[in-house]
Protein backbone atom coordinates (compact mmCIF):
# COMPACT_ATOMS: atom_id res chain seq x y z
CA UNK A 1 0.00 0.00 0.00
CA UNK A 2 1.21 3.45 -0.80
CA UNK A 3 0.80 6.66 1.09
CA UNK A 4 -0.68 9.86 -0.34
CA UNK A 5 2.75 11.49 -0.41
CA UNK A 6 4.18 9.02 -2.88
CA UNK A 7 1.37 9.67 -5.34
CA UNK A 8 2.39 11.83 -8.25
CA UNK A 9 -0.87 11.85 -10.13
CA UNK A 10 -4.39 11.46 -8.80
CA UNK A 11 -7.18 11.40 -11.36
CA UNK A 12 -10.72 11.49 -9.98
CA UNK A 13 -13.91 11.12 -11.98
CA UNK A 14 -12.38 12.73 -15.07
CA UNK A 15 -14.99 13.27 -17.77
CA UNK A 16 -14.39 14.87 -21.15
CA UNK A 17 -17.38 15.77 -23.25
CA UNK A 18 -17.41 17.17 -26.76
CA UNK A 19 -20.36 19.25 -27.84
CA UNK A 20 -21.02 17.99 -31.35
CA UNK A 21 -23.79 18.89 -33.76
CA UNK A 22 -25.37 15.53 -33.01
CA UNK A 23 -25.33 16.12 -29.26
CA UNK A 24 -22.87 15.69 -26.42
CA UNK A 25 -20.22 13.01 -26.94
CA UNK A 26 -18.58 11.63 -23.85
CA UNK A 27 -15.11 10.53 -24.94
CA UNK A 28 -13.87 9.94 -21.39
CA UNK A 29 -16.44 9.05 -18.75
CA UNK A 30 -15.69 9.14 -15.05
CA UNK A 31 -12.12 7.87 -15.08
CA UNK A 32 -10.31 7.59 -11.76
CA UNK A 33 -6.86 6.21 -11.05
CA UNK A 34 -3.64 7.23 -9.41
CA UNK A 35 0.01 6.86 -10.21
CA UNK A 36 2.95 6.61 -7.85
CA UNK A 37 6.31 8.24 -8.27
CA UNK A 38 8.72 6.22 -10.41
CA UNK A 39 5.91 4.03 -11.63
CA UNK A 40 5.07 3.09 -15.21
CA UNK A 41 1.45 2.69 -16.07
CA UNK A 42 -0.08 1.40 -19.28
CA UNK A 43 -3.36 2.60 -20.73
CA UNK A 44 -4.65 0.08 -23.26
CA UNK A 45 -7.70 -0.16 -25.43
CA UNK A 46 -8.61 -0.33 -29.09
CA UNK A 47 -8.90 2.66 -31.41
CA UNK A 48 -11.55 5.10 -30.30
CA UNK A 49 -11.64 3.91 -26.71
CA UNK A 50 -10.66 7.35 -25.46
CA UNK A 51 -6.98 6.77 -24.70
CA UNK A 52 -5.69 9.83 -26.50
CA UNK A 53 -8.46 12.11 -25.24
CA UNK A 54 -7.74 10.85 -21.73
CA UNK A 55 -4.02 11.55 -21.98
CA UNK A 56 -4.63 15.03 -23.43
CA UNK A 57 -7.19 15.76 -20.70
CA UNK A 58 -4.64 14.81 -18.07
CA UNK A 59 -2.21 17.24 -19.70
CA UNK A 60 -4.89 19.91 -19.74
CA UNK A 61 -4.60 20.20 -23.51
CA UNK A 62 -8.29 20.35 -24.40
CA UNK A 63 -8.95 24.04 -24.65
CA UNK A 64 -11.32 24.31 -27.58
CA UNK A 65 -14.66 25.87 -26.76
CA UNK A 66 -16.73 22.80 -27.54
CA UNK A 67 -14.99 20.64 -24.93
CA UNK A 68 -15.92 20.38 -21.29
CA UNK A 69 -13.66 18.61 -18.84
CA UNK A 70 -14.92 17.89 -15.34
CA UNK A 71 -13.53 15.95 -12.43
CA UNK A 72 -10.08 16.40 -11.02
CA UNK A 73 -6.50 15.81 -12.08
CA UNK A 74 -4.03 16.44 -9.29
CA UNK A 75 -0.45 16.49 -10.46
CA UNK A 76 1.91 16.78 -7.54
CA UNK A 77 -0.89 18.50 -5.63
CA UNK A 78 -1.67 20.98 -8.42
CA UNK A 79 -5.14 20.85 -9.93
CA UNK A 80 -5.04 20.82 -13.73
CA UNK A 81 -8.74 20.69 -14.62
CA UNK A 82 -9.92 24.27 -14.95
CA UNK A 83 -6.43 25.70 -14.39
CA UNK A 84 -5.54 28.79 -16.40
CA UNK A 85 -3.28 28.59 -19.42
CA UNK A 86 -0.65 30.45 -17.43
CA UNK A 87 -0.62 27.89 -14.63
CA UNK A 88 -0.50 25.02 -17.11
CA UNK A 89 2.40 26.58 -19.03
CA UNK A 90 4.40 26.44 -15.81
CA UNK A 91 3.63 22.75 -15.38
CA UNK A 92 4.22 21.72 -18.95
CA UNK A 93 7.79 20.73 -19.57
CA UNK A 94 8.94 20.74 -15.98
CA UNK A 95 6.20 18.68 -14.30
CA UNK A 96 4.64 16.83 -17.18
CA UNK A 97 5.84 16.35 -20.76
CA UNK A 98 4.52 14.44 -23.70
CA UNK A 99 5.97 12.20 -26.39
CA UNK A 100 3.76 12.30 -29.44
CA UNK A 101 2.55 9.50 -31.61
CA UNK A 102 4.01 10.43 -34.96
CA UNK A 103 7.65 11.55 -35.08
CA UNK A 104 7.05 12.76 -38.64
CA UNK A 105 4.72 15.54 -37.53
CA UNK A 106 5.87 16.24 -34.00
CA UNK A 107 9.11 17.95 -35.02
CA UNK A 108 9.19 21.29 -36.79
CA UNK A 109 10.51 20.44 -40.27
CA UNK A 110 12.29 23.77 -40.78
CA UNK A 111 14.09 24.02 -37.44
CA UNK A 112 17.39 22.34 -36.62
CA UNK A 113 16.78 19.58 -34.07
CA UNK A 114 19.25 21.02 -31.60
CA UNK A 115 17.33 24.29 -31.62
CA UNK A 116 14.09 22.46 -30.91
CA UNK A 117 15.63 20.97 -27.79
CA UNK A 118 17.45 23.98 -26.42
CA UNK A 119 14.52 26.36 -27.03
CA UNK A 120 12.79 24.76 -24.08
CA UNK A 121 15.92 24.98 -21.95
CA UNK A 122 16.41 28.65 -22.68
CA UNK A 123 12.78 29.67 -22.35
CA UNK A 124 11.85 27.57 -19.34
CA UNK A 125 15.06 27.25 -17.41
CA UNK A 126 16.63 30.53 -18.51
CA UNK A 127 19.86 28.87 -19.60
CA UNK A 128 22.40 30.76 -21.65
CA UNK A 129 22.85 29.89 -25.32
CA UNK A 130 26.06 27.97 -24.71
CA UNK A 131 24.75 26.08 -21.66
CA UNK A 132 21.58 25.13 -23.48
CA UNK A 133 23.56 23.84 -26.42
CA UNK A 134 25.78 21.74 -24.20
CA UNK A 135 22.76 20.34 -22.41
CA UNK A 136 20.95 19.63 -25.70
CA UNK A 137 23.96 17.66 -26.93
CA UNK A 138 23.97 15.77 -23.63
CA UNK A 139 20.29 14.96 -24.10
CA UNK A 140 20.88 13.77 -27.65
CA UNK A 141 23.58 11.49 -26.33
CA UNK A 142 21.27 10.31 -23.55
CA UNK A 143 18.63 9.18 -26.03
CA UNK A 144 21.27 7.30 -27.99
CA UNK A 145 21.90 9.48 -31.00
CA UNK A 146 25.37 8.86 -32.46
CA UNK A 147 27.70 11.85 -32.94
CA UNK A 148 25.32 14.28 -31.22
CA UNK A 149 27.51 17.35 -31.88
CA UNK A 150 26.96 16.91 -35.58
CA UNK A 151 23.30 15.88 -35.33
CA UNK A 152 22.62 19.02 -33.31
CA UNK A 153 22.62 20.94 -36.59
CA UNK A 154 20.58 18.42 -38.57
CA UNK A 155 17.07 19.04 -39.80
CA UNK A 156 14.36 16.47 -39.00
CA UNK A 157 14.18 15.56 -42.69
CA UNK A 158 17.74 14.25 -42.50
CA UNK A 159 16.95 11.70 -39.79
CA UNK A 160 15.18 8.34 -39.88
CA UNK A 161 11.89 7.74 -38.10
CA UNK A 162 13.52 6.05 -35.12
CA UNK A 163 16.07 8.86 -34.78
CA UNK A 164 13.32 11.43 -34.94
CA UNK A 165 11.38 9.71 -32.19
CA UNK A 166 14.55 9.78 -30.08
CA UNK A 167 14.76 13.51 -30.71
CA UNK A 168 11.10 13.90 -29.73
CA UNK A 169 11.88 12.09 -26.49
CA UNK A 170 14.90 14.32 -25.93
CA UNK A 171 12.75 17.45 -26.32
CA UNK A 172 10.22 16.02 -23.88
CA UNK A 173 12.96 15.26 -21.36
CA UNK A 174 14.67 18.64 -21.73
CA UNK A 175 13.24 20.13 -18.53
CA UNK A 176 13.35 16.82 -16.61
CA UNK A 177 9.61 16.31 -16.15
CA UNK A 178 8.30 14.23 -13.26
CA UNK A 179 5.67 12.63 -15.45
CA UNK A 180 6.15 11.59 -19.05
CA UNK A 181 3.06 10.90 -21.12
CA UNK A 182 3.85 8.71 -24.11
CA UNK A 183 0.89 8.52 -26.46
CA UNK A 184 1.51 5.50 -28.68
CA UNK A 185 5.18 6.47 -28.99
CA UNK A 186 6.03 3.60 -31.32
CA UNK A 187 3.08 3.37 -33.70
CA UNK A 188 4.90 4.92 -36.63
CA UNK A 189 8.02 2.79 -36.26
CA UNK A 190 8.94 -0.73 -37.28
CA UNK A 191 9.19 -3.51 -34.74
CA UNK A 192 12.92 -3.54 -34.03
CA UNK A 193 12.94 0.22 -33.56
CA UNK A 194 9.83 -0.06 -31.38
CA UNK A 195 11.67 -2.28 -28.95
CA UNK A 196 14.67 0.09 -28.90
CA UNK A 197 12.50 3.11 -28.16
CA UNK A 198 10.55 1.31 -25.43
CA UNK A 199 13.73 0.06 -23.78
CA UNK A 200 15.11 3.58 -23.99
CA UNK A 201 12.02 4.98 -22.23
CA UNK A 202 12.40 2.35 -19.54
CA UNK A 203 16.09 3.14 -18.98
CA UNK A 204 15.42 6.86 -18.88
CA UNK A 205 12.63 6.38 -16.38
CA UNK A 206 15.11 4.67 -14.05
CA UNK A 207 17.87 7.21 -14.64
CA UNK A 208 15.74 10.32 -14.26
CA UNK A 209 13.29 9.03 -11.62
CA UNK A 210 10.24 9.78 -13.69
CA UNK A 211 6.80 8.29 -13.81
CA UNK A 212 5.64 7.19 -17.22
CA UNK A 213 2.19 6.69 -18.68
CA UNK A 214 2.36 4.53 -21.76
CA UNK A 215 -0.71 4.77 -23.96
CA UNK A 216 -0.99 1.96 -26.47
CA UNK A 217 -3.25 -0.48 -28.23
CA UNK A 218 -0.54 -3.13 -28.11
CA UNK A 219 -0.63 -5.34 -25.04
CA UNK A 220 2.79 -6.71 -25.90
CA UNK A 221 4.20 -3.25 -25.33
CA UNK A 222 2.86 -2.90 -21.80
CA UNK A 223 3.28 -6.50 -20.66
CA UNK A 224 6.88 -6.32 -19.49
CA UNK A 225 7.36 -2.61 -19.05
CA UNK A 226 4.56 -1.46 -16.78
CA UNK A 227 3.66 -2.22 -13.23
CA UNK A 228 0.05 -1.21 -13.64
CA UNK A 229 -2.49 -1.43 -16.44
CA UNK A 230 -5.70 0.45 -17.12
CA UNK A 231 -7.95 -1.13 -19.75
CA UNK A 232 -10.32 1.31 -21.41
CA UNK A 233 -13.41 0.68 -23.45
CA UNK A 234 -15.78 3.34 -24.83
CA UNK A 235 -14.21 6.03 -22.66
CA UNK A 236 -14.47 4.12 -19.39
CA UNK A 237 -12.10 2.02 -17.36
CA UNK A 238 -13.32 -1.56 -17.56
CA UNK A 239 -10.48 -3.18 -15.67
CA UNK A 240 -7.36 -2.06 -13.91
CA UNK A 241 -4.76 -3.53 -11.66
CA UNK A 242 -1.17 -4.56 -11.46
CA UNK A 243 0.16 -5.81 -14.76
CA UNK A 244 0.72 -9.29 -13.35
CA UNK A 245 -2.87 -9.50 -12.08
CA UNK A 246 -4.45 -8.18 -15.24
CA UNK A 247 -2.56 -10.63 -17.40
CA UNK A 248 -2.97 -13.64 -15.17
CA UNK A 249 -6.34 -13.17 -13.50
CA UNK A 250 -8.33 -10.77 -15.65
CA UNK A 251 -12.01 -10.80 -14.89
CA UNK A 252 -13.46 -8.63 -17.62
CA UNK A 253 -14.27 -10.46 -20.89
CA UNK A 254 -13.01 -7.47 -22.88
CA UNK A 255 -9.55 -7.77 -21.38
CA UNK A 256 -9.56 -11.42 -22.26
CA UNK A 257 -10.68 -10.67 -25.78
CA UNK A 258 -7.88 -8.11 -26.18
CA UNK A 259 -5.31 -10.62 -24.96
CA UNK A 260 -6.68 -13.31 -27.25
CA UNK A 261 -6.42 -11.05 -30.25
CA UNK A 262 -2.67 -10.56 -30.05
CA UNK A 263 -0.45 -13.30 -31.48
CA UNK A 264 1.54 -15.49 -29.13
CA UNK A 265 4.92 -17.01 -29.79
CA UNK A 266 3.78 -20.34 -28.36
CA UNK A 267 0.92 -20.74 -30.81
CA UNK A 268 1.54 -23.22 -33.63
CA UNK A 269 2.07 -21.59 -36.99
CA UNK A 270 -0.99 -20.71 -39.05
CA UNK A 271 -3.10 -20.28 -35.93
CA UNK A 272 -5.97 -18.01 -36.79
CA UNK A 273 -5.99 -14.94 -34.57
CA UNK A 274 -9.11 -14.43 -32.54
CA UNK A 275 -10.85 -11.19 -33.32
CA UNK A 276 -13.44 -9.30 -31.35
CA UNK A 277 -16.66 -9.33 -33.35
CA UNK A 278 -18.43 -6.06 -34.05
CA UNK A 279 -16.95 -2.65 -33.57
CA UNK A 280 -16.64 -0.14 -30.72
CA UNK A 281 -19.95 1.54 -29.93
CA UNK A 282 -20.98 4.94 -31.19
CA UNK A 283 -20.14 7.22 -28.28
CA UNK A 284 -23.08 9.44 -29.17
CA UNK A 285 -25.58 6.65 -28.60
CA UNK A 286 -24.26 4.81 -25.58
CA UNK A 287 -26.76 2.41 -24.11
CA UNK A 288 -27.57 2.39 -20.40
CA UNK A 289 -25.93 -0.95 -19.87
CA UNK A 290 -22.36 -2.15 -20.27
CA UNK A 291 -20.87 -0.69 -23.46
CA UNK A 292 -19.20 -3.99 -24.29
CA UNK A 293 -22.41 -6.04 -23.91
CA UNK A 294 -23.32 -6.14 -27.64
CA UNK A 295 -19.96 -7.77 -28.43
CA UNK A 296 -19.67 -9.90 -25.34
CA UNK A 297 -20.22 -13.66 -25.34
CA UNK A 298 -21.30 -13.61 -21.70
CA UNK A 299 -23.77 -10.78 -21.91
CA UNK A 300 -26.99 -11.33 -20.02
CA UNK A 301 -30.19 -9.33 -19.80
CA UNK A 302 -28.74 -7.28 -16.97
CA UNK A 303 -25.68 -6.23 -18.97
CA UNK A 304 -27.87 -4.44 -21.49
CA UNK A 305 -29.82 -2.35 -19.00
CA UNK A 306 -27.53 -1.68 -16.06
CA UNK A 307 -23.95 -0.41 -16.21
CA UNK A 308 -21.53 -2.31 -13.99
CA UNK A 309 -19.32 -0.14 -11.77
CA UNK A 310 -15.68 -0.85 -11.03
CA UNK A 311 -15.61 -3.38 -8.21
CA UNK A 312 -12.53 -4.58 -6.40
CA UNK A 313 -11.27 -8.04 -7.23
CA UNK A 314 -9.27 -10.29 -4.96
CA UNK A 315 -5.91 -8.56 -5.11
CA UNK A 316 -5.48 -4.99 -3.79
CA UNK A 317 -5.63 -2.44 -6.60
CA UNK A 318 -7.27 -4.82 -9.02
CA UNK A 319 -10.80 -3.89 -10.02
CA UNK A 320 -13.13 -4.59 -12.91
CA UNK A 321 -16.51 -3.55 -14.25
CA UNK A 322 -18.52 -6.62 -15.17
CA UNK A 323 -21.68 -8.39 -14.07
CA UNK A 324 -20.45 -11.78 -15.22
CA UNK A 325 -16.73 -11.75 -14.44
CA UNK A 326 -14.52 -14.51 -15.71
CA UNK A 327 -13.06 -16.97 -13.33
CA UNK A 328 -9.78 -18.59 -14.09
CA UNK A 329 -11.42 -21.93 -14.99
CA UNK A 330 -13.87 -20.42 -17.41
CA UNK A 331 -12.83 -20.30 -21.05
CA UNK A 332 -13.73 -17.30 -23.10
CA UNK A 333 -15.85 -17.88 -26.18
CA UNK A 334 -15.64 -15.08 -28.65
CA UNK A 335 -16.66 -15.20 -32.29
Amino acid sequence: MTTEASKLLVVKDLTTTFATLAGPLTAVGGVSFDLNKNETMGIVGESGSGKTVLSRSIMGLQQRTNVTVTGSVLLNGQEIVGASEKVKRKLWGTEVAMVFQDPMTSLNPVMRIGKQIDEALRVRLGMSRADAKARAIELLELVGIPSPQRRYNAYPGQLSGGMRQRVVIATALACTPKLLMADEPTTGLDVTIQAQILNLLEDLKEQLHMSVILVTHDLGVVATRTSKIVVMYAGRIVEMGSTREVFAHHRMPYTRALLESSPKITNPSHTRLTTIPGRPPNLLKLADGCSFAPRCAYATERCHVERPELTPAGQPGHSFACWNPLTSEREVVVA
Partner: protein
Amino acid sequence: MAHPHVEPPEEKEPLGFLFWICVGWIGLNLVGAIFANVLPLQNPLYQNYTSINVGPSLHHLLGTDDIGRDIFSRVVYGSRISITAGIGAMIIGFGVGAPLGMLTAYRRGRFDTMVTTVMYALLAFPGIVATIAVLSFWVPRDLFKIIVVIGVASIPIIYRIIRAATLSVASRDFVVAAKVQGASDRRILFKELLPNVAPILISFLLIGVATVVTIEGALAFLGLSVNPPTPSWGNMINEARTVMAQNPWLVIFPSVALCLFLLSLNYIGDRLRTHFDVAEVKL
Protein backbone atom coordinates in the same frame (compact mmCIF):
# COMPACT_ATOMS: atom_id res chain seq x y z
CA MET B 1 46.66 14.29 -44.40
CA ALA B 2 42.93 13.91 -44.16
CA HIS B 3 41.55 13.10 -40.76
CA PRO B 4 39.70 9.78 -40.93
CA HIS B 5 36.57 11.12 -39.24
CA VAL B 6 36.13 14.28 -41.22
CA GLU B 7 32.53 14.58 -42.34
CA PRO B 8 31.79 15.76 -45.84
CA PRO B 9 30.43 19.30 -45.63
CA GLU B 10 26.72 19.72 -46.18
CA GLU B 11 26.40 19.89 -49.92
CA LYS B 12 24.11 22.48 -51.33
CA GLU B 13 23.25 22.91 -54.93
CA PRO B 14 24.67 26.25 -56.10
CA LEU B 15 22.12 28.89 -56.96
CA GLY B 16 23.26 28.90 -60.58
CA PHE B 17 24.28 31.32 -63.27
CA LEU B 18 20.72 32.21 -64.31
CA PHE B 19 19.87 33.12 -60.73
CA TRP B 20 22.62 35.71 -60.61
CA ILE B 21 21.63 37.08 -64.02
CA CYS B 22 18.12 37.58 -62.64
CA VAL B 23 19.45 39.23 -59.50
CA GLY B 24 21.57 41.49 -61.68
CA TRP B 25 18.59 42.39 -63.82
CA ILE B 26 16.41 43.26 -60.83
CA GLY B 27 19.30 45.28 -59.43
CA LEU B 28 19.64 47.16 -62.71
CA ASN B 29 15.90 47.88 -62.71
CA LEU B 30 16.04 49.18 -59.18
CA VAL B 31 19.05 51.37 -59.90
CA GLY B 32 17.27 52.74 -62.97
CA ALA B 33 14.11 53.42 -61.00
CA ILE B 34 15.88 55.12 -58.13
CA PHE B 35 18.43 57.17 -60.08
CA ALA B 36 16.45 57.86 -63.25
CA ASN B 37 16.83 61.62 -62.86
CA VAL B 38 20.61 61.54 -62.32
CA LEU B 39 21.38 59.03 -65.05
CA PRO B 40 22.33 60.43 -68.47
CA LEU B 41 18.87 59.86 -69.91
CA GLN B 42 16.92 62.02 -72.31
CA ASN B 43 13.91 63.89 -70.99
CA PRO B 44 11.08 61.35 -71.06
CA LEU B 45 8.51 64.08 -71.65
CA TYR B 46 10.34 65.98 -74.41
CA GLN B 47 8.47 65.71 -77.71
CA ASN B 48 10.80 65.82 -80.68
CA TYR B 49 8.56 66.19 -83.71
CA THR B 50 11.46 65.82 -86.13
CA SER B 51 11.90 62.17 -85.20
CA ILE B 52 8.55 60.46 -84.78
CA ASN B 53 8.12 56.67 -84.67
CA VAL B 54 11.77 55.96 -85.47
CA GLY B 55 13.16 52.51 -84.76
CA PRO B 56 16.03 51.75 -82.37
CA SER B 57 19.19 53.68 -83.19
CA LEU B 58 22.29 54.92 -81.38
CA HIS B 59 20.64 58.20 -80.60
CA HIS B 60 17.37 56.66 -79.43
CA LEU B 61 18.32 53.24 -78.06
CA LEU B 62 14.79 51.92 -78.27
CA GLY B 63 13.44 54.40 -80.81
CA THR B 64 10.79 57.06 -80.27
CA ASP B 65 7.02 57.06 -79.93
CA ASP B 66 4.29 58.71 -82.01
CA ILE B 67 5.00 62.13 -80.58
CA GLY B 68 8.76 61.81 -80.66
CA ARG B 69 9.55 60.91 -77.04
CA ASP B 70 12.54 58.67 -76.29
CA ILE B 71 11.22 55.19 -75.43
CA PHE B 72 14.32 54.04 -73.54
CA SER B 73 14.10 56.95 -71.20
CA ARG B 74 10.34 56.42 -70.76
CA VAL B 75 10.81 52.74 -69.95
CA VAL B 76 13.37 53.58 -67.28
CA TYR B 77 11.23 56.34 -65.80
CA GLY B 78 8.17 54.09 -66.12
CA SER B 79 9.78 51.49 -63.89
CA ARG B 80 9.66 54.03 -61.07
CA ILE B 81 5.88 54.09 -60.96
CA SER B 82 5.42 50.39 -61.68
CA ILE B 83 7.95 49.07 -59.19
CA THR B 84 6.92 51.51 -56.47
CA ALA B 85 3.26 50.60 -56.95
CA GLY B 86 4.04 46.87 -56.88
CA ILE B 87 6.19 46.94 -53.78
CA GLY B 88 4.14 49.59 -51.96
CA ALA B 89 0.81 47.85 -52.42
CA MET B 90 2.26 44.52 -51.29
CA ILE B 91 3.73 46.12 -48.18
CA ILE B 92 0.22 47.23 -47.25
CA GLY B 93 -1.44 43.98 -48.31
CA PHE B 94 1.03 41.68 -46.56
CA GLY B 95 1.56 44.02 -43.65
CA VAL B 96 -2.08 43.63 -42.68
CA GLY B 97 -3.19 40.37 -44.33
CA ALA B 98 -0.32 38.09 -43.35
CA PRO B 99 -0.14 38.74 -39.58
CA LEU B 100 -3.93 38.69 -39.34
CA GLY B 101 -4.15 35.41 -41.28
CA MET B 102 -1.51 33.73 -39.12
CA LEU B 103 -3.03 34.98 -35.89
CA THR B 104 -6.58 33.88 -36.66
CA ALA B 105 -5.44 30.51 -37.98
CA TYR B 106 -3.48 29.88 -34.81
CA ARG B 107 -6.01 31.17 -32.28
CA ARG B 108 -9.19 30.04 -34.06
CA GLY B 109 -12.37 30.60 -32.06
CA ARG B 110 -14.75 33.52 -32.29
CA PHE B 111 -12.15 36.09 -33.39
CA ASP B 112 -11.23 33.90 -36.34
CA THR B 113 -14.88 33.43 -37.34
CA MET B 114 -15.49 37.17 -37.21
CA VAL B 115 -12.43 38.23 -39.20
CA THR B 116 -12.84 35.47 -41.76
CA THR B 117 -16.49 36.36 -42.32
CA VAL B 118 -15.62 40.01 -42.89
CA MET B 119 -12.79 39.07 -45.26
CA TYR B 120 -15.02 36.75 -47.28
CA ALA B 121 -17.66 39.45 -47.48
CA LEU B 122 -14.98 41.78 -48.90
CA LEU B 123 -13.88 39.09 -51.34
CA ALA B 124 -17.42 38.95 -52.68
CA PHE B 125 -16.86 42.40 -54.21
CA PRO B 126 -15.03 42.23 -57.51
CA GLY B 127 -11.74 43.84 -56.46
CA ILE B 128 -11.08 45.70 -59.67
CA VAL B 129 -14.57 47.27 -59.69
CA ALA B 130 -14.16 48.42 -56.09
CA THR B 131 -10.73 49.83 -56.95
CA ILE B 132 -12.12 51.73 -59.94
CA ALA B 133 -15.02 53.07 -57.89
CA VAL B 134 -12.81 54.39 -55.12
CA LEU B 135 -10.22 55.86 -57.48
CA SER B 136 -12.93 57.63 -59.50
CA PHE B 137 -13.94 59.66 -56.48
CA TRP B 138 -10.66 60.03 -54.63
CA VAL B 139 -9.13 62.94 -56.52
CA PRO B 140 -6.63 64.30 -57.30
CA ARG B 141 -5.09 60.89 -58.00
CA ASP B 142 -1.47 60.30 -57.20
CA LEU B 143 0.76 57.28 -56.80
CA PHE B 144 0.23 57.14 -53.04
CA LYS B 145 -3.55 56.83 -53.34
CA ILE B 146 -3.23 54.16 -56.03
CA ILE B 147 -0.90 52.16 -53.81
CA VAL B 148 -3.26 52.46 -50.85
CA VAL B 149 -6.31 51.39 -52.82
CA ILE B 150 -4.67 48.40 -54.51
CA GLY B 151 -2.97 47.45 -51.25
CA VAL B 152 -6.21 47.50 -49.27
CA ALA B 153 -8.05 45.59 -51.99
CA SER B 154 -5.40 42.84 -51.81
CA ILE B 155 -5.72 42.32 -48.04
CA PRO B 156 -8.59 39.75 -48.13
CA ILE B 157 -6.86 37.65 -50.81
CA ILE B 158 -3.57 37.61 -48.93
CA TYR B 159 -5.38 36.99 -45.65
CA ARG B 160 -7.14 33.95 -47.08
CA ILE B 161 -4.00 32.36 -48.49
CA ILE B 162 -1.85 32.93 -45.40
CA ARG B 163 -4.62 31.74 -43.10
CA ALA B 164 -5.01 28.52 -45.10
CA ALA B 165 -1.26 27.94 -45.15
CA THR B 166 -1.00 28.53 -41.40
CA LEU B 167 -3.98 26.28 -40.63
CA SER B 168 -2.32 23.30 -42.27
CA VAL B 169 0.84 23.86 -40.22
CA ALA B 170 -0.86 24.81 -36.94
CA SER B 171 -2.71 21.50 -36.76
CA ARG B 172 0.53 19.51 -36.77
CA ASP B 173 1.78 17.93 -33.57
CA PHE B 174 4.98 19.94 -33.29
CA VAL B 175 2.93 23.02 -32.49
CA VAL B 176 1.29 21.19 -29.60
CA ALA B 177 4.72 19.84 -28.67
CA ALA B 178 6.14 23.37 -28.50
CA LYS B 179 3.17 24.40 -26.43
CA VAL B 180 3.57 21.64 -23.87
CA GLN B 181 7.20 22.63 -23.57
CA GLY B 182 5.87 25.93 -22.33
CA ALA B 183 6.45 28.08 -25.42
CA SER B 184 4.46 31.31 -25.47
CA ASP B 185 1.97 32.14 -28.22
CA ARG B 186 4.32 34.75 -29.65
CA ARG B 187 7.14 32.27 -29.76
CA ILE B 188 5.00 29.66 -31.47
CA LEU B 189 3.83 32.21 -34.06
CA PHE B 190 7.29 33.51 -34.89
CA LYS B 191 9.55 30.51 -34.37
CA GLU B 192 7.34 27.56 -35.19
CA LEU B 193 4.72 28.79 -37.64
CA LEU B 194 6.38 31.65 -39.53
CA PRO B 195 9.36 29.65 -40.90
CA ASN B 196 6.92 27.02 -42.16
CA VAL B 197 4.65 29.57 -43.82
CA ALA B 198 7.55 31.66 -45.16
CA PRO B 199 8.05 29.81 -48.48
CA ILE B 200 4.39 30.30 -49.40
CA LEU B 201 4.54 33.87 -48.15
CA ILE B 202 7.57 34.76 -50.26
CA SER B 203 6.40 33.14 -53.48
CA PHE B 204 3.00 34.74 -53.12
CA LEU B 205 4.61 38.10 -52.35
CA LEU B 206 6.57 37.97 -55.61
CA ILE B 207 3.52 36.99 -57.63
CA GLY B 208 1.68 39.79 -55.83
CA VAL B 209 4.20 42.42 -56.93
CA ALA B 210 3.85 41.17 -60.50
CA THR B 211 0.07 41.29 -60.31
CA VAL B 212 0.02 44.84 -58.95
CA VAL B 213 2.26 46.02 -61.81
CA THR B 214 -0.31 44.69 -64.28
CA ILE B 215 -3.25 46.08 -62.29
CA GLU B 216 -1.62 49.48 -62.36
CA GLY B 217 -1.44 49.06 -66.14
CA ALA B 218 -5.14 48.20 -66.29
CA LEU B 219 -6.01 51.24 -64.20
CA ALA B 220 -3.82 53.38 -66.44
CA PHE B 221 -5.78 52.14 -69.42
CA LEU B 222 -8.96 53.41 -67.78
CA GLY B 223 -7.27 56.69 -67.01
CA LEU B 224 -7.34 55.96 -63.30
CA SER B 225 -3.61 55.78 -62.67
CA VAL B 226 -0.99 58.51 -62.63
CA ASN B 227 -1.89 61.16 -65.18
CA PRO B 228 -0.14 61.21 -68.55
CA PRO B 229 2.39 62.19 -69.65
CA THR B 230 4.09 60.62 -66.61
CA PRO B 231 5.12 57.20 -67.90
CA SER B 232 4.55 53.85 -66.26
CA TRP B 233 4.98 50.46 -67.95
CA GLY B 234 1.24 49.95 -67.79
CA ASN B 235 0.18 53.25 -69.28
CA MET B 236 2.89 53.08 -71.95
CA ILE B 237 1.51 49.76 -73.17
CA ASN B 238 -2.01 51.08 -73.08
CA GLU B 239 -1.22 54.33 -74.89
CA ALA B 240 0.69 52.43 -77.55
CA ARG B 241 -2.19 50.12 -78.37
CA THR B 242 -3.72 52.69 -80.70
CA VAL B 243 -0.58 52.98 -82.82
CA MET B 244 0.45 49.35 -82.57
CA ALA B 245 0.10 48.76 -86.32
CA GLN B 246 2.39 51.65 -87.25
CA ASN B 247 4.96 51.28 -84.48
CA PRO B 248 4.94 47.86 -82.77
CA TRP B 249 8.11 48.73 -80.77
CA LEU B 250 5.99 51.00 -78.68
CA VAL B 251 4.09 48.06 -77.22
CA ILE B 252 6.95 45.59 -77.31
CA PHE B 253 9.59 47.45 -75.27
CA PRO B 254 7.58 48.25 -72.13
CA SER B 255 6.01 44.77 -72.33
CA VAL B 256 9.44 43.14 -72.51
CA ALA B 257 10.61 45.28 -69.59
CA LEU B 258 7.58 44.20 -67.57
CA CYS B 259 7.96 40.52 -68.53
CA LEU B 260 11.66 40.35 -67.73
CA PHE B 261 11.13 42.07 -64.41
CA LEU B 262 8.38 39.63 -63.39
CA LEU B 263 10.17 36.55 -64.72
CA SER B 264 13.34 37.47 -62.86
CA LEU B 265 11.42 38.02 -59.65
CA ASN B 266 9.64 34.67 -59.94
CA TYR B 267 12.81 32.80 -60.84
CA ILE B 268 14.67 34.31 -57.89
CA GLY B 269 11.80 33.38 -55.59
CA ASP B 270 11.69 29.85 -56.88
CA ARG B 271 15.44 29.26 -56.63
CA LEU B 272 15.58 30.68 -53.13
CA ARG B 273 12.72 28.45 -52.04
CA THR B 274 14.37 25.24 -53.30
CA HIS B 275 17.77 26.38 -52.03
CA PHE B 276 16.65 26.96 -48.47
CA ASP B 277 14.03 24.23 -48.35
CA VAL B 278 14.96 21.83 -45.57
CA ALA B 279 11.56 20.27 -45.17
CA GLU B 280 11.67 18.35 -48.41
CA VAL B 281 13.72 15.23 -47.99
CA LYS B 282 16.33 15.06 -50.71
CA LEU B 283 17.04 11.57 -51.91
